[in-house]
């Protein structure tokens, strides 16, 4: 069985973003970059499937510049992925999910995979589209937001989060699944495995290698601006709940003008 895990490198959520005024570009020179936390669930799930036995090969696929190699090595190869493929192309810089999925789908088609795992979304742009587009492009079954996975012969059963409950979905393989928090507890790499990860194969391909013309991005980011300053917080004395509720309603109506 061949599993592809589509991953992304994102700024660490603790990275400080200094942005005083609207700007066309983020100054990302000082960013620490990590594996997208949702993708870590995908990696962990793939490695668990591999550890459960059978002939399983796990490949991490990522799009990005040379700097993604550290993430691949430490957070994918050192925790159990067998190899990695980097799609490195200047055209992919700032590309939207459509373009990204086109490139990833090309690699997945080229090598042929039984299962494609990815995070529900990346914490940087929060769009949550890649997995869904991949399912469509690859013509594979697609289950999103999974929190539990059982693999059968040529099929799978997954639990997915829905509002107010969970849904149990059966699907046939090959399939694309997007992984949600709760699916598993991603492990940390061990020091000896970090050393060994340096020996695992890492392939770099360009869009030309894949014979690809990327679609023009449907969306482009024009400016980044800091969030508006937060307003004053008003505390209502809650000694008498009924009076407090009346005061809250009044403020919402008269001052905030939202009701």
């Amino acid at each position, binding site marked *: 069985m061949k599993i592809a895990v589509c991953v992304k490198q994102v700024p660490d959520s603790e990275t*400080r973003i200094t942005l005083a005024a609207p700007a066309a570009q983020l100054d990302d020179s000082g960013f620490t970059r990590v594996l997208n936390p949702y993708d870590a669930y995908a990696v962990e799930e793939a490695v668990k499937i591999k550890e459960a036995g059978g002939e399983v090969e796990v490949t991490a696929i990522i799009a990005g510049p040379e700097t993604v190699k*550290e993430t691949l*090595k430490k957070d994918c190869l050192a925790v159990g992925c067998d190899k990695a493929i980097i799609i490195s192309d200047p055209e992919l810089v700032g590309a939207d999910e459509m373009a990204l999925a086109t490139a990833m789908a090309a690699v997945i088609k080229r090598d042929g995979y039984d299962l494609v795992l990815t995070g529900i979304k990346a914490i940087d742009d929060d769009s949550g589209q890649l997995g869904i587009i991949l399912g469509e492009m690859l013509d594979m079954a697609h289950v999103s937001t999974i929190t539990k996975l059982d693999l059968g012969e040529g099929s799978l059963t997954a639990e997915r989060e829905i509002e107010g409950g969970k849904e149990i979905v059966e699907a046939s393989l090959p399939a694309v699944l997007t992984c949600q928090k709760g699916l598993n507890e991603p492990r*940390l*790499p061990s*020091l*000896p495995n*970090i050393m060994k990860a340096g020996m695992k194969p890492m392939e770099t391909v360009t869009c030309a290698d894949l014979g690809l013309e990327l679609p023009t991005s449907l969306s482009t980011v024009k400016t980044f601006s800091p969030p508006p300053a937060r307003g004053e917080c008003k505390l209502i004395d809650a000694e008498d709940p009924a009076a407090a509720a009346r005061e809250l309603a009044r403020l919402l109506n008269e001052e905030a003008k939202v009701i």
Partner: protein
Amino acid sequence: MSDAKYPTGGEFLLQETDPADCFTPEDFDENQRMFATTVDDFTAKHVLPVVEELEYEGDTTLGKGLLKEAGTMGLLMADIPEAYGGMGSNKATIMLISEKIAHAGSFAVTHGAQSGIGTLPIVYFGTDEQKQKYLPGIATGEIMTCYALTEPGSGSDALAAATTAMLTDDGKHYVMNGTKQYITNASYSEIVILFAKIDGDKFTGFIVDLSSDGVTIGAEEKKMGIKGSSTCAIILEDVKVPVENVLGEIGKGHHIAFNILNVGRFKLGASTTGGSKMALSAAVPYTKDRKQFEQPLCSFGLIRRKIADVAAAIFMSESMLYRTAGLLDVAIDTLDKKDAGYDRKSIQQVEEFSIECSMIKVFASEVLALSADECLQMLGGYGYCQEYPLERIYRDERINRIFEGTNEINRMLVPGMILKKAMKGELPFLQAAQAVADELTGLPSFEEPGEPEFLENEAKLVANMKKIVLATLGMAAQKFGMELKDQQEVLADIADITMAAYACESALLRTKKKVAKDGEEAAALMANMFTLYVHDAMEDVSTWARNVMAGTVEGDELRTMLAGLRRLTKHDPVNRTKLHDAIADKVIEAEGYTAE
């Protein structure tokens, strides 16, 4: 070993070092950097969630599970050779791991006892059978180990141990009796490296199974800090230990004890450097948020001064620490890994640098004392309360000046070991000392200084500090001869001068290396921290040296020496406020220590 091509300890006093040959934290490779973040991740995931239980409730039982977890992540195997299930890492990597694990608070001490003092005696002095039997399990955390040297009646004077080991009539066992005290991890360890006197006089190392009949583990000590680490006595009553558990040679236990202390010292230098960084990271963000007089604390000059002084001191510790790691690695790399005696020889190489190991221990633990104290002060009353980590860091800091050889004992060792090497002909110290003495008593030169190059004046201060070490130690050795060992105050002052010289030179070399690679602008913060520190240090060196001289000679001789000393210590003050500001800006922006 005077003709050796590889470096040897104490040599820095007598020669110039090329910055390119000085290992610095900027030289870490990708694997090492990944190890560092992995240790941080381990702490965040496994230790920080139980901080309350460990550090404030003093639950010492958690250490065992955490050690097992650390074992599965390979955090216990850096010191163990690959042939026995370890990683056989170099010293720079080992120090980096020790530095990073410091953020785990008490668990750092637990980790150090297992992976350092509990492991290394077997690595360096064990037989192949002993290594096979214990090291793979120790590497993964399946076997917990500890180290018992101290006794109620013998602490600093470790060789005065009263624990005895008597051979049984059939020659198969030793019967041991005695009490070991303050043993980290004793409560849950399977084995202990324990020192006892065979027949009451031959000081010898043993590997003792703690499940043996006659072993009792005492109650947990109620400690001031590192409350999550386990510290108990081990009481031995007619404990039978098989003869094959003797570690190293009979009567040579002091070799093991002293060499392991050496390694323990540089590791402690690393963990205290990590601790200092933790203190600064715990304080700086607070000074940005907290406002008084409608201004953030970090805008006040006196707070900025604290931030800058602490950062500069950490820069010194860090620079001397990794410089020493590099020296050790170069020395060890000259050995043949396939040589059956490789492990034993590599500890001999570490022994060559016992001067540096003691200096790092004392210097870095005292920088931590400064960091904890000043960082707590930055938080005012909040620093004094347990809601913020500085209250704990302040308590935890204290032990580092006591164990692995008290700072007093280590101070005595520094000049002592320099002289020992000189006597053995390993360091051409006496000739060099004579040359400096001649310079001091000779006529001053009157060359007009030109416009100084970048850091040229400061480099001169460093060179002069080294001369002052030679002058004071040479003078004291000549005057007191064999009695010098009883002149503790003189020796301590000389130790302090030596440490200042080593720290300042290490920081200078690191800064110069950075300048050579990335230019003066990129090295500006390093240069500022070094400049700030070296000028202050020269004032201290001047005081220490004057005291040594006054405690050693008198009359005309003293006056001539003091005049010579004034030439060496002369320096114009720098604008400290400007330096403090430049450094504080960077540290505040980074919300913690940085050298970038």
